[in-house]
Structure formats: C-alpha cells, structure tokens
C-alpha cells in the first residue's frame, strides 16, 4: 500500500478508521478536533488514496486541480499540498468553492473552462507536481492532454474518468480502453503508471495515475 502523504492520517472518527486531513470544515463532514474525515465515496481522489494507488503525493506539492466543483476534494488537497489551483467552470458550485478557499490561503479558485488552458495559463504556474482531474465532460482524455503543459517532467497526473460522461450507451470497459489509448498514443502524451476501476466507491469510473512522456 502506498504511503500516506504528510498531512493525511487514518484516524478513528465516528467509530471508524477514516482518512482525514487538518483544516476548516467544508461540507459538514465528521471531524475529530481539527481533523476532518475525507470520504472516499464522495471523492475520487479519496478513493484512489483509500485503495492504495501509487499517487506519489508526499505533501507540500504544487497542484492543479481540474473540475474542483464545490471544493469537497480540493479542500482536502489544499490541507496537505502547497499552492493549489482549483479550476471549475460552473458558477453554482464555484460559490461553495469560494467559501472553502476563504480559510485556505494556498487555494486559488478560478472560474475557467478546463478545456481551454490558455484562459488560465497566465495565472497557473508551470511545473506543477500534480494534476488532479475530475471533470464530467466528454473528452476527458483530451482535457488531460491539453493541460499537460502545466505538469513538471517528473510530475503526476491523477485522473478519474467517468464512463458515462463520454458515452452513456457504451460499455465502460471500452470507453476506458479508448481513453487509455488516447492518453498514451501521442508523443506529448502520458505514460501510464497504474489504472484501476473505482467501482467500490464510484460506479463506472476509472482512476488513472500517469507520468508525462
């Protein structure tokens, strides 16, 4: 099992061993003192960590988070990481993202479209250590490729692919196979480190850990 990054612990909360980070509560999650439980059922990255995937996070890295939504997961990321850029396109969830960012000076919310990196490349720095991606739109592999320019050569992509966002009618396994091919076929693409389905926590989702080629 992959080592937990600094700042994430397994703690006894509500009678269960749970992943937890330290920070101000965001969505009414159970807490133990300043520790707040990180629910793998509500967070794909949480599920990846719970499953012991090779996420490569150690704590303190610079992170670009695509598809931050209302900030559930990115708030935990900001609790353990360094500068954390959170891109979200929809204004409604972004309102909650703003309140999560209020108490986290290292969390930078951006109302931008992850499919158009040039609209935020003047803000997000180059050479980030990790890109976390959870966007429910068609062309998820494309988004990961477009945003590769932000990633350090030894950085990691932690990607959750939702099969139903690509094509509701196709077999998820086929959707995942295509996405893996698309990610790896280009010279400026990625090299897969690990991929695993998240079915125990999220139906029809594939988690991918990759490195830039």
């Amino acid at each position, binding site marked *: 099992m992959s080592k937990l990054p600094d700042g994430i612990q397994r703690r006894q909360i509500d009678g269960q061993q749970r992943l937890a980070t330290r920070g101000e509560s965001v969505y009414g999650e159970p807490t133990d003192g300043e520790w707040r439980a990180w629910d793998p059922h509500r967070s794909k990255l949480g599920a990846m960590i719970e499953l012991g995937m090779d996420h490569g996070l150690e704590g303190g890295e610079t992170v670009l988070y695509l598809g931050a939504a209302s900030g559930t997961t990115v708030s935990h990321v900001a609790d353990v990481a360094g500068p954390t850029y959170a891109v979200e396109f929809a204004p409604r969830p*972004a309102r909650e993202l703003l309140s999560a960012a209020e108490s986290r000076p290292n969390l930078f*919310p951006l109302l931008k479209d992850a499919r158009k990196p040039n609209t935020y490349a003047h803000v997000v*720095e180059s050479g980030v250590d990790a890109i976390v991606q959870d966007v429910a739109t068609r062309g998820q592999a494309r988004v990961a490729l477009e945003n590769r320019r932000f990633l350090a050569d030894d950085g990691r992509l932690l990607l959750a692919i939702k099969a139903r966002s690509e094509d509701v009618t196709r077999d998820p396994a086929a959707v995942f196979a295509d996405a893996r091919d698309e990610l790896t076929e280009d010279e400026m693409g990625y090299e897969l480190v690990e991929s695993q389905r998240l079915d125990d926590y999220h139906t029809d989702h594939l988690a991918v850990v990759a490195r830039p080629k």
Partner: protein
Amino acid sequence: MTESSGWFAPLAADSDADDDVLVAAIRDGSADEPDSWPDRAVGEGAVEDEDAYYDRLHRATMAATRAAVTERERADDSQLIHAIRAMDDCQRTANELAERVAEWAGTLDPEAGSGIEYARDLAATEPEPGETAVVSLAEQVVDLEAEADGLRAYVEQTMPTVAPNLAALAGPVLGARLISLAGGLESLAKKPSGTVQVLGAEDALFAHLRGHAPSPKHGIIYMHDGVRGTPPENRGSAARAWRGSSPSPRASITTPASTDPTSRPN
C-alpha cells in the same frame, strides 16, 4: 502586453496597482503557455518574495472568481432558469397540497370537492370551529398559485428581451423551459436541432439508446400547440418540422441578446 504576460503584469508596472486591475487581468487575460510565474513576478519586482506573491494571488483569484460567479449567475438567462423552475415547483407543490386539503376536508365535509379550485373556495370561507387548520392550509395553496402566476408573468415579460425570436417561435414559457433544460441560452443555441427536439425526454432517449425502446418523437416541445394539436401518429413529423422550421430554433436563438459579446460569460 509588456515584457510579462502573467496576471501580475499590472503590479510589475505599478506596485500600487488596484485590485480591480488584477481582477480584470485574471478574468480576461490569457497565455499560450504557463511560466514559472512566482519567480517571474519576484524578478520583475511585482512582489517582494514568493510568500507575498501567493498572498496577492489568493486575494486576486478570490475577488476575480467571486465577480465572475456573480456575473454569470445574474445573467438574464440564469435568472430565467430559476424563475421557470420555481414556477414549476410552486405549481407542483400547490397541486400536492390541494390533494392533501381535499383529503382532509373530506373527513370534515362529505360534500368536499377536490383540486385547486376547491382549495380556493375553501380558503374564501369563514372556518367553522375545528376547520381552521385545513382552511389555513387551503390559503397556502392559493398563495402558491398566486406565486406561480407571478413567476409566469416574470417569465413572459423577460423572455422577449433575453431571446426574442425563441420567445416568438416557442412562446415565452416553453422557450424558457428549453433554456432551462439546456442549462443556458448559449448551450441551447449550440445544440443540434435533433437534440432540441428531444430535450425533456432524456429517460426515453436513453432507454432507446440502450436498445430497449423506440426513439422518442419529442420532448418538452410537446407543449407547443403545433405539436400537441397534431394527431399522435403525425406528432413525430410535427416535432421534426418544428425543430427544422425556418427560422429554425437554432438560428432563432442566435439573437442579438446572445451574440452581443458584452453579455457573454467569459
């Protein structure tokens, strides 16, 4: 732009630059490639050190995102979407409560009627002892009905300025429903007409795509008289004719209201 094309360029030019200028730079700026902006900002004298850079970045991104969220949410089409959804909520709730009123009143008066009409009559009566609670509930039904009417008036009044051609073609209420189902005026304008034809029939469409149902002939545009007023066997072609009508829904949505660059979300 100057030497730097990072968001902090105004700060590099003038270290007293206003937050508003930085907010505008974050919202409207762009770059083909990212750069090591923190180092550049320090190097160009925009900020003292890295800590100061991230402090300023946090402040600026918070303000820029707050402003962008407010602007997008205040956009006329999102107001319209809330109004039409609220109108439907009020109507549905009024109907549900009217049923409850009828059931309750039936235990007090064997002659009790049903529906919103009955709730209205009941609300107008002076309650007998023991009837105050049910009469008060009936009053709520009447209030909700009035609220729904008010919302409908708002939609009818707003639609023609937000999407004049769509309002004329589909009627204001149906037009607003189409915008609501598409999630916004711009996304509706970008949808192929075949998608517009079946908006609101998603369950039937997915059942069809999974291979165990016929394809839906129409979605919410069933509400249009040109479709509903047609015998069932011809409704499919009526729906196709409507979505392909000239000016087509697609063309008609591309009105000055949505093509005006100043009204567009960034």
